[in-house]
């Protein structure tokens, strides 16, 4: 049995706006195991980035974790001080961000940025850290690693910078890698290179990966398991096969129908009607019901609970629940 790397239980995170607190994450729970990529998908504002920041303890000042527990490799890290978190951040969990252009410090050499974490967390000497950094630069497919160490971020293209970020994070051999839209800003051919690289590293290093994206195409390419978020709630969770081939939640279905698929010939792009609710909006019942073609009175009054539709496949929808009772 693979070891559980991350466990998030009943997480509720809220934003303070004008002295009121509005929940952005509404009771989210999920686990990530070693050598597993869990993709979290959803549209902007669904809470996927807030999830990662809650786990990392990097939430902005106006956000609060109201409830819930985050467990990293069996150790509860939620509620810890920044100082204590600094011991696990980087060493046990690392994070890659969306914007490769701005995520590296423009005034420090690649070498400096690669080695500082190693020196701090792994107790390496400068020399050892240097050697490890070069090794990892080569691992992520960067040629002339030694000369790259002396360069500054502005001398590298976007694709290369993202590789540097990956090398920086992976060289510390974290148990958990959090990747927040790491390929969104890259061109498709570069994106594919990076996705393949991430997949390879995950396997060889036995890492658990939490991969955030809005692109369902990317999900299909990289995910073992998929979590679909809508307005702060987990509407569906299952293996990649279950989500893409046997999806149950109307939102998942709508999302997939809206993606223009290059492989299909007679394909009409179908939009989900209505707009995404703002976090300040109060919706009674299922958060998706105003846009759902199947909404019933029950959906308008009662929040659906997740049921295990088949093994490992969870759906939070009254319609699915009712249809499976009969």
């Amino acid at each position, binding site marked *: 049995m693979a070891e559980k790397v991350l466990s998030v239980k009943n997480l509720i995170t809220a934003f303070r706006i004008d002295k009121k607190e509005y929940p952005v994450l509404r009771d989210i729970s999920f686990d990530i195991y070693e050598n597993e990529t869990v993709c979290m998908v959803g*549209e*902007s504002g669904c809470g996927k980035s807030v999830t990662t920041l809650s786990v990392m303890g990097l939430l902005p000042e106006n956000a609060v974790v109201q409830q819930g527990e985050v467990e990293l490799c069996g150790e509860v890290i939620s509620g810890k001080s920044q100082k204590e978190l600094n011991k696990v951040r980087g060493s046990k969990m690392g994070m890659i961000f969306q914007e490769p252009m701005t995520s590296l410090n423009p005034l420090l050499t690649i070498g400096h940025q690669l080695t500082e974490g190693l020196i701090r967390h792994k107790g390496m000497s400068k020399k050892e850290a240097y050697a490890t950094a070069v090794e990892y630069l080569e691992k992520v497919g960067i040629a002339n690693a030694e000369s790259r160490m002396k360069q500054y971020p502005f001398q590298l*293209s976007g*694709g*290369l910078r993202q590789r540097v970020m990956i090398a920086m994070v992976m060289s510390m051999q974290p148990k958990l890698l959090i990747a927040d839209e790491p390929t969104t800003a890259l*061109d*498709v*051919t*570069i*994106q*594919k*290179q990076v*996705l*393949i690289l991430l*997949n*390879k590293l995950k396997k060889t290093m036995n890492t658990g990966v939490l991969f955030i994206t*809005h*692109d*369902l*195409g*990317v*999900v*299909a*390419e*990289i995910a073992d398991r998929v979590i679909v978020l809508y307005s702060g709630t987990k509407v569906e969770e299952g293996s*990649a*096969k279950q989500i*893409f*081939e046997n999806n149950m939640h109307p939102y998942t279905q*709508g*999302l*997939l129908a*809206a*993606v*223009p*698929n*290059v*492989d299909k*010939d007679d*394909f*009409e*792009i*179908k*939009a*989900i*009607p209505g*707009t*995404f609710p*703002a976090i300040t909006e109060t919706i009674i019942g299922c958060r998706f019901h105003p846009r759902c073609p199947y909404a019933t009175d029950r959906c308008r009054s009662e929040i659906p609970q997740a049921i295990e539709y088949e093994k490992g496949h969870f759906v939070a929808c009254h319609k699915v629940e009712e249809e499976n009772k009969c």
Partner: protein
Amino acid sequence: MLEHRPALIELNKLKKYFPVKRGVNLKALEDVSLEIYEGEKFGVVGESGCGKSTLGRVILQLYRQTSGACVYHGKNIEEVAPKYIGKEIDKLLEYQQKADEYYKKSLELDKKVEALDEKIEALSDHGTKQEVAKRRKLTQERDKLAFQSKEHKKDASRQLREGSRTVGSLILSAKLPEIQKLYKDAYDATVHAGEYVKEYNRYHAEYAEAVTKGETPSAEVEKLMKEAEEKVKKYRDKALTCKAQALSMRRQDILPITERCLDEEYQRKLDHNYETGINLAKLTEKEMRSLRKDMQMIFQDPAASLDPRKTVGKAIEEVFEIHTDYGKEMRRESTMKLLEDVGLKREQYYSYPHQLSGGQKQRVGIARAIALNPKFVVLDESVSALDVSVQAQILQLLEELKEKQNLTYFFITHNLGVVKHFCDRVMVMYLGGVCELAESKELFRQPLHPYTKSLLKAVPRPTVRDNYEEETVLEGEVPSAINPPKGCTFHTRCSECMEICKKVKPTLQQVEDGRFVACHLYNKNK
């Protein structure tokens, strides 16, 4: 055979270089030639730095081209009367004269060549050393003269071709001074007509404002409006008569300026050169500004193009304020109607941008772009920043608007899925050049250019596959446009690279009906 469709935009060897340092240029566009048909959704795809955005901006003349022509057929020169046409008309006689001079020079040279030929003939090639040397010298001389003569002939043709842009085969006529006069009159009449169109628009706006307010428009205004309308008609008619009169002189009194001139085929060819469209590259800034009503742009980030302190209504009304004579009521009413057209509510006239979602902001951007009934709209990654569900909504809206207003889209994106399902024809660009141009269905069914193939392979697909890691990826990154690779720009990353690719730049050639590829693999003369 595909039916012949009227082109709305025609690009000819368009180049755009951005100076980086002295003597160093970033070659953003390199010889782009294409036609965009009226009413089509023309897609452009490529990775960042391929020049797709630059192309969109150059067509709209937001950047001026380094060289090449960008012809707009949505209006003709009779409606716009651009200054450059007037100048060209003035130059007609000069073209004809110069062509004549060049040709005469070339004939003289020909005579000299003939004389030399005879001399060379007379010298035997087995003669003394001196004779051989003399013969070589004479041959050299002869070749030089022959070359000069050929160049002069080319120059003559070039002059005639330039002239034919304005008057077609009439450039060959002996009565050119008379024709020039007629064209000049027609041009002046068009300019006058344009002035009265402006006057008419002003009165019409006044009239419409009254109607919108629910008042009866004053009889005075109505009278002035009618008068202006009649004047426009009068001058337009005059211009037409003048041109018709000039055209009636076709195929008559043709001067034998060059030997080809009497050839009907050549005359037809010159007639074909006759330009009815407007070469945007030659317009003055002012002329371009007034044409911009016809050609609009929708950007990627709608939030960035909206002033946060201005209501949505004000932001749209601004367009009417600048480009029309509409009165206050008329502006407000048109704006509200536009809001409805793009799927917003009339009440949102009073909203501020921050009260709108990303999709709604983009709808405002669209409303602004279509406010003046444009014919051509450049969409630069207009749906790329939106979530999929909203993206689909916006694409549907664009489709509806296109049908309703007969728009032509120039759709720039990096998302191949969107292009496939939204666009009629697709052009693939790489490092400032065109790789492939085809009907969207055909391109995706069977991509020809190796770059198109690898691009398609790299697109993430929403289907689960097991052999993901074995799939091939395009290695490396796009080279710098400051110093692009010699030969085919893609050869450094191409899996099917041949010797020739490293040396010769492939040209865009038609390989099937409506399918164009720039790749040596498909070169028929191989």
